[in-house]
């Protein structure tokens, strides 16, 4: 699959410290995480990372976790709302394995840097590979720069000590002339506009990986993990019934539980809408995944609140 790579001359800073941040140690850490998730992570090299999907036995998505192998430990981040669920899930399946999982949210923060030039400013390199990480020093503070492209643009997560956050954000704002510190709405706009699924929105137990464009995180050759049999069967027998699509929408009012209908048939749901109510993401029955169709958007009282059309663009391989 080709992974579209967008570029951005504007440099953004977004505080993603709301994510669950964990340090995992122990000889069996990667082996256990490999047995519990869809991507192959047992051979993660030092200073490399990967995202992988925790699925339940029905093949539904519990969460997508991102792992980096750095400094004799694994750094893991999860969606914050799911942190407890992820940790309980790992704990349930830990028997005699040598693994310790420690929450580090009180000690570490995660600043996301979006844009092409951050690696030049911070480590004097034009770019680093996706899912590579490098240690760096910012004003005497040790930090870790990890490339994850969370909005589809080239982007990095900077892991920093929590008590240095404001100082480091100020420093980053000064070294980069085109920087903009963005809020939640802008971050959501960037990722929706690029068609990136987000934890707690598209990424939830309502869907399996195929339905929300997480195909690239399913390793077909790695062997057993929880949910593998269901996930591979869905693909082999072409049983996936719906797909995530980027939509151009006209919406009067963004409401929760907006359904997508076509000729009075319920064909999908809206999962995300940007703050302009013009671009959204939705999961749509494959029979109706066609450009040129105008769908109706209805609220939970079946009132018409807007229209939508598929923007047939290939979605990038990222999670926000």
């Amino acid at each position, binding site marked *: 699959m080709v992974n579209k790579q967008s570029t951005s001359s504007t440099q953004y800073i977004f505080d993603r410290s709301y994510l669950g941040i964990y340090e995992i140690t122990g000889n069996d850490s990667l082996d*256990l995480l*490999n*047995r*519990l998730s869809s991507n192959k992570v047992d051979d993660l090299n030092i200073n490399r990372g990967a995202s992988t999907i925790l699925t339940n*036995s029905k093949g539904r998505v519990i969460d997508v976790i991102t792992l980096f192998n750095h400094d004799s430990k694994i750094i893991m981040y999860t969606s914050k709302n799911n942190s407890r669920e992820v940790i309980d899930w790992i704990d*349930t*399946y*830990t*028997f*005699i*394995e040598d693994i310790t999982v420690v929450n580090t949210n009180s000690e570490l923060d995660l600043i996301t840097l979006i844009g092409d030039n951050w690696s030049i400013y911070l480590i004097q390199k034009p770019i680093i590979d996706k899912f590579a990480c490098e240690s760096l020093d910012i004003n005497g503070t040790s930090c870790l720069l990890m490339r994850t492209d969370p909005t589809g643009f080239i982007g990095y997560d900077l892991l920093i000590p929590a008590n240095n956050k404001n100082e480091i954000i100020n420093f980053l704002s000064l070294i980069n002339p085109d920087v903009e510190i963005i809020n939640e709405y802008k971050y959501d706009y960037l990722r929706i506009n690029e068609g990136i699924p987000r934890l707690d929105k598209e990424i939830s137990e309502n869907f399996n990986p195929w339905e929300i464009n997480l195909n690239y995180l399913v390793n077909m050759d790695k062997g*057993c*993990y*929880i*949910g*593998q*049999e*269901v996930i591979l069967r869905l693909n082999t027998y072409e049983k996936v019934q719906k797909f995530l699509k980027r939509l151009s929408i006209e919406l009067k009012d963004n409401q929760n539980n907006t359904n997508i209908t076509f000729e009075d048939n319920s064909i999908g749901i809206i999962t995300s809408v940007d703050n302009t109510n013009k671009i959204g993401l939705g999961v749509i029955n494959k029979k109706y995944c066609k450009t040129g169709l105008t769908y109706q958007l209805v609220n939970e009282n079946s009132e018409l609140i807007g229209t939508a059309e598929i923007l047939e663009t290939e979605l990038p391989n990222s999670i926000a």
Partner: protein
Amino acid sequence: MTPLTITITENAAKHVRDFTGRESEDGVSLRVGVKGGGCSGLTYDLSIDADFKESDKVIEERGITILIDKKSYIFLAGTILDYSGGLNGKGFVFSNPNAKTTCGCGTSFSV
């Protein structure tokens, strides 16, 4: 009621001894456990292991010392360990009364 033990058949015990290369009936320790993973969530795990831990449940059966860690024992109580040989045999086979579902390959289960 599920018996609070793990049983090994004579056929399985023989293959454990064959596997270790010991013909005598004494001194073979088999660790039986459960690991997270597999299609259904849990998989069986067997290893030759003389390293006894204080928290282990220890069962002596047919000359085999079966060691089970405490957490795995919850999922394995009542299990019969057999051996299915021949060209189409499956090797060691677990008959686990706690397993509610078993995946297609038979090595993974859920409770």
